[in-house]
């Protein structure tokens, strides 16, 4: 194509010498070489009238020039066609009437699901504070809580809340620059920009937004260069009054291997904890999800399913399974069906997979700041008794060890001691402090596995 353009340019230069300036400008300027096949040369000109003149009056001149540059005996034909040299430019020219419509679809926000909005979020005491602060941030981005740091276990609705903020801000003012990204993607972008030597471009991208949302921030742990980049981005955005929203599975103070200065900035705005949805909320979530799938779900069935899982994602999985099963059998979604299908499914609250008892004891010791030897010793100081009983509980519940085995591990204690300890912790589980401790220890376990 470019060859043809160049060839035609040469031919035109030749022709220009042989015709008057007026003729050249009006007749030849807007011609182009359309194709060159064998010895047939097709020349495009914008109108039949121009073609008529070219053919009748300038054929000889054109042919001579063409023959000279193609070095053959060419036969020349003309085609009425407008070759717009500025096609590329034309695309950019404004047609606001037509562009106007684009922002109407929220699809403009990459990575953000349109159906995650505040309206379809179920709210109860476990996530009410988070919900209220998120709506406040969406109403007045960058003005009140900056940054907003949401943390909570999987499937408690962090992502839903954050995407709702993005959707709401966008709905209110679609000229706002919104960037939703996971910390993994952030890492990739930074790495990629360093690799391709395009850091300036990357910096511009992150530092020019009105709302930056980073999901699962805990994954930047141990990545120093990324943290540095985030630190600077953070400072600039806050200075510009742009809103930042972050999420993590634990509070800033518990994120390890992240620089202090960055952590203190994370905690500098509002830090809100979202708890695992309670039973009522789970039921409500199920009803909302069922509506989304266009399925009628009775409250009774929702309750049955809500008992079987803790986080919203598992709930959705169970719900889908129930729906699919009902459809496959051609039945209504009934209590019997749900019971039959999900009845034997255990409540998988804490963690899946097994660990060596020593690891768990190490974790417990790290958490309570005691030594394993102290834990296993015969001393019965109050600061040792609690960790020890927690250890009994976790070893029993998670590893399913027998009371005798646990007794052996913990320094040769009698199995009745262990039974008492487990029972005591079970009774205390209602108290939030202890159950929080236990879930923190479980998290530690998972994390250590990741580290290995």
């Amino acid at each position, binding site marked *: 194509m470019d060859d043809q353009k160049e060839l035609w340019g040469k031919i035109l230069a030749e022709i220009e010498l042989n015709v008057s300036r007026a003729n050249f400008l009006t*007749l030849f300027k807007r011609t182009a070489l359309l194709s060159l096949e064998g010895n047939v040369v097709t020349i495009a000109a914008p109108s*039949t*009238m121009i073609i008529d003149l070219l053919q009748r009056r300038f054929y000889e001149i054109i042919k001579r020039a063409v023959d000279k540059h193609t070095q053959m005996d060419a036969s020349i034909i003309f085609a*009425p066609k407008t070759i*717009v040299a500025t096609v590329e430019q034309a695309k950019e020219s404004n047609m606001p*009437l037509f562009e106007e419509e684009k922002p109407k679809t929220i699809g403009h926000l990459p990575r953000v699901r349109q159906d995650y909005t505040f309206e379809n979020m179920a709210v109860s005491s476990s996530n009410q504070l988070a919900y209220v602060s998120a709506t406040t941030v969406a109403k007045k981005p960058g003005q009140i809580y900056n940054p907003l740091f949401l943390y909570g276990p999987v499937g408690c609705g962090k992502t839903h809340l954050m995407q709702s903020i993005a959707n709401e801000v966008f709905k209110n003012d679609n000229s706002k620059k919104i960037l939703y990204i996971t910390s993994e993607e952030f890492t990739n972008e930074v790495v990629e920009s360093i690799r391709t030597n395009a850091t300036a471009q990357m910096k511009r991208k992150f530092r020019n937004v009105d709302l930056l949302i980073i999901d699962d921030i805990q994954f930047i742990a141990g990545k120093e260069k990324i943290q540095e980049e985030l630190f600077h981005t953070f400072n600039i955005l806050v200075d510009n009054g742009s809103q930042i929203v972050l999420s993590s599975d634990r509070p800033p103070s518990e994120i390890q291997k992240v620089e202090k200065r960055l952590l203190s900035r994370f905690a500098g705005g509002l830090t809100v904890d979202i708890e695992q949805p309670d039973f009522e909320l789970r039921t409500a979530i199920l009803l909302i999800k069922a509506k989304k799938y266009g399925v009628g779900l009775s409250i009774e069935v929702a309750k049955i399913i809500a008992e079987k899982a803790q986080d919203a994602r598992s709930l959705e999985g169970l719900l889908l399974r129930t729906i699919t099963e009902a459809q496959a059998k051609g039945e209504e979604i009934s209590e019997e069906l749900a019971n039959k299908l999900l009845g034997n499914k255990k409540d998988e609250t804490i963690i899946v997979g097994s660990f060596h008892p020593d690891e768990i004891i190490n974790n417990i010791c790290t958490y309570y700041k005691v030594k394993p030897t102290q834990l296993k010793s015969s001393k019965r100081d109050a600061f040792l008794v609690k960790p020890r009983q927690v250890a009994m509980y976790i070893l029993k519940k998670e590893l399913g060890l027998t009371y005798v085995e646990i007794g052996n591990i913990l320094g040769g204690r009698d199995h009745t001691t262990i039974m008492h300890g487990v029972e005591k912790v079970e009774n205390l589980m209602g108290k939030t402090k202890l159950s929080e401790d236990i879930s923190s220890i479980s998290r530690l376990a998972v994390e250590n596995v990741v580290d290995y």
Partner: protein
Amino acid sequence: MKIVFLSSNLSAKLSFLNHAVSSRGQLPILSNFLLETKKGKFHISSTDLEMGIQTSIPANVEEEGKTTVPAKNFSELVSNLGEEKVTLSLSDQSLKLTTGKVKSAFQTTPAEEFPKLFEEKGEEVAQIKREVIDKKMGRVVFAAAVESSRPALSGILLQKAKGGYIAVATDGYRLSLQKNISIGEKGEVKDKDLLIPARLIKELISLKEEGDTLKMYVSEKSNQTIFEQGETLVVGRLIEAKFPEYEKIIPEEHNSKTSFSRQDLQNAVRICSVFARETANILKLSLKKDRIVISANTPSVGENTVDVEAKLEGEENEIAFNARYLSELLSNIEEDEMTFEMQGPFNSGVFRVVGDNDFLHLIMPIRVQE
């Protein structure tokens, strides 16, 4: 070449022929008329290479032949002759024009240098009534872009529809759409969309010629279209470009609809324009229950508001438009009763003519910072 004809017959056609005389005049031949005599008729043609016009008048042809003369001088002379019998005769390079009292001789350029307007007329695709061109196309053509880097916007899209064509034009800021352009009994609707230069349609509207029907021809081979009315042919080329997908931007819903008199609104727009001229021509329309309040202000000049009686259905609303777009729309509509529909200040507003579902015009609003 030698012919005799009545000067008034020719002078009636000259002003239209001059529309296609090249104004830039880079190529001298394009500022000439082509004069031809054939079979008892005197043909005159002009072209600027983009558009061509050919017309003919009855004449007493004594000897056939053809030549070209400078259009400007020739038209000026002929239009000042009054009602006279004119004899034209060509000898060597000189064209002699004589009446009872006047004797003049023009320097000519050989007819061979003049471009041929068309090879063949092409296929007849429509017979459009004169009033359809004047009224329905007139409501559409003004919305096309005059100068645009996008060729498609300088054209009118004729799109196949049941029993005729849909005509659409837009310059990217506003859009006019007219359905049911009837194509007559003999016409055959092209499956392919036709994009006709707006200039050509504007010329057709200004064409005064006998007969009440325009025949439209299309030759896809040479990418050309010809309109013929009476003795006059207007030749143009089809635009090869993709017209923007206009269907998508026509709003389907509205939450405010108001009916008003076009004349009243037009007056109000004229009055308010005085104060809008220096601030990007912005007029604000406030839709109230029983009226539309048009307002404009320029900090250095002043401000004013004009009430236009109207009947609102739905919510009260506000929107701002460029005054030029409003006044161009209002002056291209003949009917007096119109409606305006809108949904929020950021969505295009839609104007319609009451009792005519075939037409709509939409204008993109201006975002005004409060």
